[in-house]
């Protein structure tokens, strides 16, 4: 019979091998992914030779002369941003027709149907944790989808060539807020883009939010969707953007121990309601402070006790004065 000590010492001796094995397997996997990315980047360069800049050149077969043309801004792909994006491992022709290989591109390709997020990410176990199906349902219920129908697609906010998820990363909340708000402001603070979907003039963001105290601090500390989208417990980022009349205007929605920020911006970090030091919604305090939401349980308790002691002291003193007063 093998003693427990022998079993334990065998396990301990096996650990270094296990660690080396894990490192080797992960490095092989990472290397394969990086190799794949490098190969695809080389392949993509054929497209980016023209689509990677604002101008492109070709030889006119009729005249034999070199022609320089401007690239439509919508079809310019920023190499650096693409290399950092979520889709960086893809070849252009993974999503676009292989017929784009020829130049001039065949005219029928203009009719090519564009994928939506759900086309690739839906029903795939790999992406199950992101709950794309639920995101799609939420988006379809949002004011973006109900008002603009098919004119509004995922791509208007999540450019497939540049988009990267930020909320699950180690980035600071302020950087995540800035990145995500820039997505909204890209249309809502840009009349040209705004009027691609409506004839209305985009409202002045600062003026519309002039009721908000410390406006700049709010804009830098929370995302637009915190107030403008309905929170959903089962998905990480709310996509059901509400009409302006339903936007959160009650300060206490965030400024209370039951802060909605814990169900939105700080959702991914939420593990406990009160941290060990007794602060409500303590996770917010790693990077910010929300009056009313970050009060301290112990400090509150202490203040109640001290006020009780003072009130009792006053009561006793006053009672004695009354009892001992000169008749």
């Amino acid at each position: 019979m093998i003693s427990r000590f022998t079993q334990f010492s065998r396990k301990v001796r096996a650990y270094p091998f296990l660690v080396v094995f894990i490192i080797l397997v992960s490095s092989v996997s990472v290397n394969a992914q990086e190799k794949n990315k490098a190969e695809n980047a080389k392949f993509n360069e054929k497209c980016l030779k023209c689509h990677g800049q604002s101008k492109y050149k070709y030889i006119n077969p009729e005249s034999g002369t070199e022609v320089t043309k401007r690239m439509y801004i919508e079809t310019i792909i920023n190499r650096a941003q693409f290399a950092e994006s979520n889709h960086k491992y893809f070849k252009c022709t993974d999503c676009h027709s292989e017929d784009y290989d020829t130049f001039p591109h065949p005219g029928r390709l203009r009719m090519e149907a564009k994928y939506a997020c759900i086309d690739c990410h839906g029903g795939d176990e790999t992406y199950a944790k992101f709950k794309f199906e639920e995101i799609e349902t939420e988006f379809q219920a949002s004011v973006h989808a109900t008002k603009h129908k098919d004119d509004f697609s995922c791509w208007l906010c999540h450019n497939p060539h540049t988009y990267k998820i930020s909320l699950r990363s180690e980035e600071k909340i302020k950087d995540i807020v800035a990145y995500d708000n820039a997505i909204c402001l890209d249309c809502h603070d840009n009349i040209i883009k705004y009027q691609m979907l409506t004839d209305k003039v985009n409202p002045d963001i600062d003026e519309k939010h002039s009721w908000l105290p410390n406006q700049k601090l709010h804009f830098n500390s929370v995302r637009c969707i915190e107030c403008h989208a309905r929170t959903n417990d089962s998905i990480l980022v709310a996509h059901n953007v509400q009409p302006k009349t339903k936007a959160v205007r009650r300060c206490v929605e965030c400024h209370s121990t039951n802060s909605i920020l814990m169900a939105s911006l700080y959702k991914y970090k939420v593990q406990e309601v009160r941290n060990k030091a007794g602060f409500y919604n303590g996770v917010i305090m790693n990077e910010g402070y929300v009056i009313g939401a970050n009060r301290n349980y112990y400090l509150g308790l202490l203040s109640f006790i001290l006020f009780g002691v003072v009130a009792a002291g006053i009561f006793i003193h006053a009672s004695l004065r009354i009892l001992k007063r000169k008749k």
Partner: protein
Amino acid sequence: MSEKIYLYPLWIRLWHALNAILIILLIISGVSMQYTNPENPFIRFDIAVTMHNISGIILTVNYMVFVAGTFFTPNGKYYKLTLKGLFGRLIKQFTYYTFGIFKHENPPFPVTKESKFNPLQQFTYVIAMFVLVPIVLITGWAYFYPEIILTKIMGGSGLKINDFIHVIIGFFVSFFMFIHIYFCTIGATFVSNFKSMVSGFHETH
């Protein structure tokens, strides 16, 4: 037989009345913000914020009036602490409040034209007016410009530190207020000190 001494000139009475109203408003709105409850708000959060901000601004101006009055009028002399023997005087006054008052002893430091406050009053008023109130005013004003002041002076965690200081010191100011109001009932009669805040005349025991 009690006598009346004119101790509180008009400007002090006006300053004091305004100060009292503002501090009460600040305590009420501050407590309401600190213990916000969406279902049952004591004062609606945005109203409490506005109330706190406006009261804080006026209190700052009023505090400047007090400082100016302390430096440029004879009123300043009442706030000059004599450190020598202070502890003994504080104990003496404390003993009077805890024991002597019930035995109808005479106050150890009677109010005179030269000495408006007893040592315990003088000490607590100096702490309140020259330590606590300036701290709540400075930390309060820092919240008007959080993105400039708090990040520049205290780095990323400035908001938290500032809030703790503001809330804790505000809490002590509230303490002071409660005890101060109660002690006003200790005079020639229960209401004589309140009357003197209006008339300016202090009625001695």
